[in-house]
């Protein structure tokens, strides 16, 4: 906290050079944007290029996060684990110029799950290690028991693809082609892995070059001072938000329908309070680690907590060490949110969504009413179709994650059909899907009546119905929220739960559970998924009459719902 000084006149803390700090933060963002642009522009995989499932960051020589451009919240701060693991395995004084490191393992290298591979590159000036540039990207396959490397049914990380501890991928300025080949040949698409990993290495090199430019422009001492300022400023800003919380304590419990292998619902319990100026988030009461792959490794739990704190307390807060230091996470080993090796973690994002829901719930008891949100349709349904390709050799895999109803607040109805919490990937257009795969979309629509009633209505979930156009189409799904709805707040009602059907509207219609593995569809069979709506905010009887009328005309609610809003048909 050397950059903070106390001015006698006011007794308030202030930053050494607030203008220099703001200019500097723009320059840092310029560098992370340049790195992010390079990574997205040059990568081959749709996962990185279109879904932007990747992040870049800058660290100081101690491994403190200085700046991050995160394209999905589930990566917030998640590069820290990689950089710390590298520094543990390769102490700073042993790191040489012309090197770069690679890692992915959740247990050995602070990874988030196997498909997320990190590259970490040191930056030197005058022969001294000064900074690291780092990036992480979701590769579409890293080997393991199923294409895509993620199966809710996996029992251990050994089924989830190649495990990479921190290793040198670039040494003395030369790419280690042998290691690159070893990694690539352990995946289903070696050519694409090699392309994308080379792009990741080049991305960090761009960041290093930009950092050199910054040091030339400002001088090293000024850069290092500005780093201290920026971390101190962020810490100060979060401290003020934390101090406003006072001594209240909030708790909340929500449930996963099951742990990924059937079984009873799993509670996700959160209690939040302020202790010694830090925000404590305690998961005591949360269920044990899962047999399946719904377990959350440490860096994914941190990312989820950081996301929730930023969204609830200060959406503009810069993601850096200054923000993260003041947040303390308590989770006993052996919980689903802190699994022991070698538990599988591939499908951690389903649990992370419930962790976010639980934290948002706990904050309802300590934040002013105008800052809280109802629970949203946050079940992160993932559907996967695969079969022989219609137009070319090989097998296609069509994977899509679906959004749900957006949360309602004091001021606004929830948005319809959006991703909530840790991800925000876009859909595949129907016309693109039908061009690419032997599938046909029968309907893509909002789920009527799915938004929880309230003075502000919860957002509506969405429905997608897909018919297989050839025999032997294999369908899998991993989802949640079939049993436990998104709850309302301040008197708002709950949203509708999720549903999954085979052959909807046909003679042999059947409901399916939220986790489906390798179901075979014949030509003409369909799958229909309906994602949950969000909870409402406030007493529905206080919803303005014209809003109720508009909802009725638009079919968002039906005449039989009018009573809930205190009106007669």
């Amino acid at each position, binding site marked *: 906290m050397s950059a903070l000084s106390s001015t006698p006149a006011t007794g*308030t803390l202030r930053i050494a050079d*607030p*203008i220099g700090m*703001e*200019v500097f933060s*723009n*320059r840092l*963002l*310029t560098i992370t*944007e*340049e790195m992010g*642009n390079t990574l997205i522009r040059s990568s*081959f995989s*749709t996962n990185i*290029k*279109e879904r932007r499932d990747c992040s870049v960051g800058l660290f100081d020589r101690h491994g403190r996060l200085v700046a991050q451009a995160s394209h999905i*919240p589930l990566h917030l701060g998640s590069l820290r684990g990689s950089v710390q693991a590298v520094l543990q395995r390769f102490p700073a004084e042993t790191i040489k110029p012309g090197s770069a490191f690679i890692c992915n393992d959740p247990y050995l290298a602070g990874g988030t799950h196997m498909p997320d591979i990190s590259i970490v590159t040191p930056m030197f000036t005058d022969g001294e290690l000064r900074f690291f540039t780092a990036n992480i990207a979701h590769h579409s396959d890293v080997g393991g028991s199923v294409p895509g490397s993620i199966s809710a049914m996996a029992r251990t990380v050994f089924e989830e693809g190649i495990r990479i501890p921190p290793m040198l991928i670039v040494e003395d300025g030369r790419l280690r082609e042998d290691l690159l080949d070893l990694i690539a040949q352990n995946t289903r698409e070696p050519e694409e892995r090699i*392309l994308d990993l080379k792009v990741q290495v*080049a991305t960090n090199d761009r960041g290093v070059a930009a950092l050199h*430019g910054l040091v030339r*422009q400002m001088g090293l001492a000024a850069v290092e001072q500005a780093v201290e300022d920026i971390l101190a*400023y962020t810490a100060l*800003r979060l401290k*003020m938000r934390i101090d406003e919380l006072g001594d209240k304590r909030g708790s909340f419990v929500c449930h996963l329908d099951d742990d990924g292998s059937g079984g009873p619902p799993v509670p996700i319990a959160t209690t939040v309070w302020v202790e010694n100026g830090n925000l404590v988030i305690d998961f005591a009461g949360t269920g044990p680690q899962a047999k399946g792959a719904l377990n959350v490794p440490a860096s994914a739990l941190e990312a989820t907590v950081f996301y929730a704190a*930023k*969204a609830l307390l200060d*959406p503009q807060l810069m993601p850096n060490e200054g923000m993260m230091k003041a947040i303390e996470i308590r989770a006993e080993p052996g919980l689903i949110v802190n699994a022991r090796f070698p538990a599988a973690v591939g499908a951690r994002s389903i649990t992370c969504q419930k962790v976010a829901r639980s934290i948002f719930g706990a904050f309802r008891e300590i934040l002013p009413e105008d800052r809280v949100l109802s629970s949203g349709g946050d079940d992160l349904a993932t559907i996967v179709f695969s079969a022989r390709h219609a*137009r*070319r050799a090989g097998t296609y895999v069509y994977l899509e994650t679906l*959004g749900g109803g*957006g*949360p309602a*607040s004091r*001021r*606004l109805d929830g*948005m319809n*059909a*959006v*991703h*909530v919490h840790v991800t925000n990937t*876009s*859909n*595949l*257009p*129907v*016309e*693109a899907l*039908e*061009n690419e795969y032997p599938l*046909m*979309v029968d309907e*893509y*629509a*909002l789920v009527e009546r799915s938004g929880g009633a309230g003075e502000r209505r919860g957002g509506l979930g*969405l429905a997608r*119905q897909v018919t297989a156009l050839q025999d032997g189409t294999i369908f899998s799904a991993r989802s949640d929220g079939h049993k436990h709805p998104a709850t309302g707040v301040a008197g708002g009602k709950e949203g509708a739960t999720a549903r999954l059907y085979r052959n909807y509207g046909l003679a042999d219609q059947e409901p399916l559970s939220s986790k489906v593995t390798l179901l075979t569809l014949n030509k003409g069979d369909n799958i229909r998924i309906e994602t949950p709506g969000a909870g409402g905010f406030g007493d529905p009887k206080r919803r303005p009459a014209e809003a109720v009328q*508009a909802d009725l*005309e*638009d*079919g968002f609610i039906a005449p039989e719902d009018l009573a809930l809003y205190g009106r007669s048909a």
Partner: protein
Amino acid sequence: MYRIGVDVGGTFTDFTLLNETSGEVLFYKVSSTPSDPSEAIRTGTRALLDEFSVKPEEVSFMGHGTTVATNLVIERKGSRTALLTTKGFRDVLDIGRQTRPNLYDYQIQKPAVLVPRALRFEVDERITVDGGVLRAIDMAQVDDLIGKLKAAEVKAVAICFLHAYRNPVHEAMVRDRLREAMPDLYVTASSDLLPEFREFERLSTTVLNAYSGPRMQTYLDRLSDGVQALGVPMAPYTIHSNGGLMSIPTVRQFPVRTCLSGPAAGVVGGAVVAGEAGFQNVITFDVGGTSTDVSVIVGGQPQFTSSRTVADYPVKTPMVDIHVIGAGGGSIAWLDDASALKVGPFSAGAVPGPVAYGRGGEEPTVTDANVVLHRLNPVTLLRGKLEVKEQAARDVIEQKVAAPLGLPLEEAALGVLRITNANMGRAIRSVSTERGYDLSTFALMAFGGAGPLHACEVAAECGIPTVIVPREPGTMCARGILLSDISLDFVRTHIAAATLETWAQVGRYFDEMRVDGGNWLNGEKVAPEMRRFLQVVEARYEGQNFEVSVAIPTDEAIDLDGFLERFAEAHRVEYGYVIPDRKVELVNCRTKALGLVPKPYNDFQATEAGTVEEALLETRSVYFKADQGRVTTPVYAREKLPLETTLSGPAIVEEMSSTTVIPPASKFQVDRAGNIIISILGGAQ
């Protein structure tokens, strides 16, 4: 004969008048009339012709940039619109891409859907991916819907069916039946506007077109009546978002294509002016009161995109690729509760405006900081038309920025500018690194009222060695209209592996589009020798979901192998590598039909010039850097500066519509066309 370019902005309507015989170019400005923008065009043209003693019948060309369609969308003042779409898909407009606009802030929402669900009607029809009719349309159902549309009193209808880009038969049937039954209804079918795959973006574009159509027609009628009443023999052209000109009948059909009208003209004009000055690689930097537009020109060519939004609604028609950030002269400086100084995104806009303009503004703005540091004239602006209240600007910066931060006044004001310049610099870096360009090989072309105030420091921030400031930078968009061609874009989507057979099909699509384009150019009355066609195939490797553009010149016979070679090269340039054995997939074929408009650029010469002494208006003590304090700086009148004479900074150059700030460590000269060319010698601040 004379040519007139008009750009209608939020505050001013700018005019550029070119004398085709003498090459003289004149600039003029009147206040805009937002309730009926054609009024300012009419009265301004009248005044312009009077002022320069030009007879209306001497006007050989008139083109204009308009924000009418954009404003209808931004202000949600379009017409009551219904949507007819394929059964099962009426909510696609609401679902969009299922993403939330801000990752962390749930108070920032998707834009309101322009067609309420109750007015989104489903039609039981289905075309398949290969264009086959799976479910034929039942016209009795359409007749039933016509009754509902009448009852709902809609003014416009958008029609968008799945895969209509492949087979428009159902859309055409519905369109024709609607026009027959409801002749006053404004109807847009997606296959007429944008026959391209990806349904949400096509749907959104089609809805915006229908939504803005009826009122745009009213505006165009008033405009052409008004211009005709003046005695001008030419119907005015409109510049559209791809930087080309369209006649009024085309704009009536496709108003959504005008959404980026004025800014696109600025970029097109910037490319021509910079090119003539010897600069092929240019970043255009257009700074106004509330926003900054940044665009990249490579090899003299503006870059295009078809993935832009207008007021957060996707618009898929090809547009000049302009990146907009919310930083301008009106951006407000403020302190957050952790004592960090921020500039923007809030803006004082034109009203109440900066404190220094005395129109009721109470918050410190970027303009106020420029006044405090004497970079802007602290007495009057706009050649004496606008009084500047320096003391008020000093007071507000002192009270709201300097005192709370414990800084001297000048350092605080400089801080506001440093932060603004860093924001702007970041936007420039972002658009250039997105495509992998090296900024040290570019020049920065500054225009808009405030561009030349910031350009030199922003260039230094970004490592750009040269700044170009055209004459009267505040009216660059109006001037750009005189440098544009007539053009319209056509597209066909056909997703298929590149084979001899599909490549032959591509040839047939281009043949078709040349016929369509030729017919359109006939309507625009373009002479045969002035016609050009630019052809592009968008393709990708199998498994990719994004395309690269491959130019297919009309004067070369390119076979499949030739195309594949060009594709590989384009992929290497765009992404840095090729994948030798992977199959290539064809996606879109695009044709731009061009009608060349004579652009006597060489006539754009600086006609008056004097000596340095004659140009000197005064000296002012201007603050550039904290360690230098105030520096005695000459202030010059732009039009009197001698041509091709190298001068050193510091200097301030004033003209009617803008002020150029030239910092100490730089050299500059005025070229033969009247552009100021500045070499940045020092490093960044």
